[in-house]
């Protein structure tokens, strides 16, 4: 009984949000079912640009962080590296606002030496930095149950350390790596705080556009966009979790 109430509390707001994305009325009085806001969303140039940027950033950042994070998890599994592990845990524990401003300060400092400015690259670099830990955790979890003697057997049969990794360990890790990659994409796609600080003028991401719209406050276009994002995220996370169970 109580549980039901809490679950309503947890799910209610989102369901309501999604429900009202179909509201024909611009205001909160329900006036009939309509898809006009979805249409408006699709026609919105800013949203499209934001979406495109977010997708590009998410794809590149997750690809890079998946490679780096997987190698890190593997390396630590073979021989513990407390400093790196500590740094990765710390990156998860550090409040986003702090990582954000620290990267801003870093970029400003670095751009005195290299002549660049804030843009897609600065965002991608930042996204990789905070995704590595997520990837490492997912892959580490899979490695914990992995039989070490398999790599030894491979070496015994003539494979060098790297060949053993590629031919034996990597195939076993494949589902976990895919799951980690999907997680990294979601984390990157959803980020607002850090991105808003390091993005610069011409690389607006979808969360930034949504934020601006939410701040202005009225249009149900936000509801429509939210509904789509929620469903998309849900599907991706579901796939990711399935992969982790393989």
């Amino acid at each position, binding site marked *: 009984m109580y549980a039901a109430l809490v679950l309503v509390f947890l799910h209610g707001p989102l369901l309501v949000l999604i429900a009202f994305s179909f509201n024909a009325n611009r205001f909160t009085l329900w006036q009939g079912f309509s898809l006009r806001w979805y249409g408006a969303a699709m026609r919105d140039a800013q949203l499209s640009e934001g979406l495109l940027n977010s997708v590009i950033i998410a794809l590149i950042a997750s690809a890079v962080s998946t490679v780096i994070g997987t190698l890190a998890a593997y390396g630590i599994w073979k021989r513990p590296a407390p400093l790196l592990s500590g740094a990765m845990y710390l990156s998860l524990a550090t409040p986003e606002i702090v990582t954000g401003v620290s990267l801003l300060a870093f970029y400003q400092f670095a751009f005195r030496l290299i002549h660049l400015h804030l843009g897609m690259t600065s965002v991608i670099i930042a996204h990789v930095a905070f995704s590595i830990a997520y990837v490492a955790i997912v892959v580490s979890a899979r490695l914990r149950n992995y*039989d070490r*003697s*398999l790599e*030894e*057997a*491979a*070496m*015994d*049969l*003539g*494979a*060098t350390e790297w*060949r053993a990794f590629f*031919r*034996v360990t990597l*195939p*076993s890790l494949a589902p976990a790596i895919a799951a980690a990659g999907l997680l990294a994409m979601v984390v990157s796609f959803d980020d607002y705080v850090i991105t808003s600080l390091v993005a610069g003028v011409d690389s607006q991401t979808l969360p930034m556009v949504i934020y601006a719209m939410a701040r202005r406050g009225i249009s149900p276009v936000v509801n429509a966009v939210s509904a789509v994002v929620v469903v998309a995220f849900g599907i991706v996370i579901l796939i990711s979790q399935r992969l982790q169970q393989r």
Partner: protein
Amino acid sequence: MPAVLELRDLVKDFTGQRAVDHVSLSLETGGFYSLLGPSGCGKTTTLRMIGGFETPTSGEVLLDGANVNALKPYERDVSTVFQNYALFPHLTAFENVCFGLREKGVGDRENRAMRALDMVELASKRDRRPAQLSGGEKQRVALARSLVLEPKLLLLDEPLAALDPKLRKQMRAELKAMQRKTGITFLFVTHDQEEALSLSDKLAVMNTGRIEQFGAPEDVYLRPRTAFVAGFLGAINWFGKAGVRPESTRVCREEPSGVPCRRAAVESSLFLGSCVHINAVLEDGGRATAEMAREQNHFREGEAVWLYWEHCDELRFDEHRPQ
């Protein structure tokens, strides 16, 4: 011709303890050898040093006369069958067997692999994944996978430990036959003395990191060099400083003459079908077991008897006997 494997004064220390303590050994080509000992005696560590998975703290490992200390596992002409088989789960049996051939760039892979699978009688299951194979089948695939590479030396780390007793006996015979057929030197690690005795041309008994004796099964059983070896290879009765095997111990009601003997009280008499085991308690509180022919099943609990044996059946050692 140099020995196929020679260990010279091998030592391995882990933090706080010495696992292998100056082990020296020499194996001739084409034999079936065993390393026998209780868990923790250092036999697996020794095996791993031969395979290249541990680096010796000091001492040398020589294969065909050449020092291989610095060589990685994939550079040594030695192959290992792991205790849990370590079959690659994402590959079929056939692909598992091909694995080493691919790594070493050997030609005619498919035929060689099929021949190896034929030899272990698993050709019909070549496309099964390890998850679909039984314990015995997995073990045979692991064997085929290693043998197909025709190594100079095959190391087996307690390969039969995970099998049930009946299967174990069957696999023992198959392993022995395999070794004879291929002529490859086998080094077999086990804690089961029956296995070691029945399979080996020569066996080394290890205890706390040292080899206490290395010899043919008969030698080691009948002429053990230390009390530990005597006690590990078979049951033994201790009468003071003399050890006598149960099969050499006799029971009778009157004091025998001309042979060493002791007074005892019968504790229990177990009819085992092919023989009788009579457990008795000695005057000093110690226990002994006599193995007698099955017709001798007439001693009752509590009876006062005499245990006797031939003087030449006594085993005596310099150090104290184990508790």
